[in-house]
């Protein structure tokens, strides 16, 4: 027995034999309601953004170190791979932001009512699509 929580899995049969309780089905068995997808999406986008901070660090360091180094970053970010990374980064950032505001509302005790959390989940998805499109329309227009 490795984990102290395993002790909770111990039980006795009617014959008095000690057995492990059966586990309930795991994630892959259930269909994915929107709130479940958003919950894991918040974590995944958070981890993705942590990787994205490397891009921000590179950009700032290159700018601080010199013209040549900075031109390399700017060219990379303008390349197809760079644009793809920026697209993923901006979508992850906007998603984590919108979903994070939803979490902060819950911390205030707001939005737990039946239906309210589903409505806020749909609002998050809609806000992410609209805001990401808006950022890229403005971004490409300015470019």
């Amino acid at each position: 027995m490795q984990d102290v929580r395993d002790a909770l899995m111990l039980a006795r049969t009617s014959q008095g034999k000690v057995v492990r309780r059966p586990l309930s089905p795991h994630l892959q068995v259930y269909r994915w309601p929107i709130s479940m997808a958003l919950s894991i999406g918040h974590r995944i986008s958070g981890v993705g953004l942590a990787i994205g901070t490397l891009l921000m660090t590179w950009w700032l360091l290159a700018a601080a170190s010199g013209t040549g180094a900075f031109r390399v970053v700017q060219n990379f970010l303008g390349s197809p791979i760079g644009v793809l990374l920026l697209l993923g980064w901006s979508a992850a950032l906007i998603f984590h932001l919108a979903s994070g505001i939803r979490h902060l509302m819950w911390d205030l005790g707001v939005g737990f009512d039946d239906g309210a959390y589903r409505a806020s989940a749909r609002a998050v998805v809609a806000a992410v699509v609209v805001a990401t499109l808006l950022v890229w329309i403005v971004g490409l227009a300015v470019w």
Partner: protein
Amino acid sequence: MNTSDQVSIRRSMLGRARGRGAARAGFALWWTQRVTAVALVPLTLWFISAIISLESASRADVAGWLHSPLALALMLALIVATFWHMAIGLGEVIADYVHGEGTKLAALLVVRGLSVLLALLCAIAALRLGL
């Protein structure tokens, strides 16, 4: 497994739970994550607009942008809030999914160390550009 095994497991369960104690410092982490989250809402919106305005910027443009005390202050605030929030968030993910105590400790130390290092690098770069 016989009955005495079961009893000793139940005793150690209580013992370990007592050994772990209440959250105490855990609450400070939870609260810091919320405080940085609230700070990051306006800071992130500001950063996205700043990035858009710097799309085809030269190094001199970036330096000029950070030369404004307000922009430099906001950038430093963004750096501190981002990496602090990141360290706590990644720590939470590691605590949930990494099960071996040794690997967990190593992963947490790496995340903490990298977060501090990246934050320092970003802050020093921003200061060098802006000052």
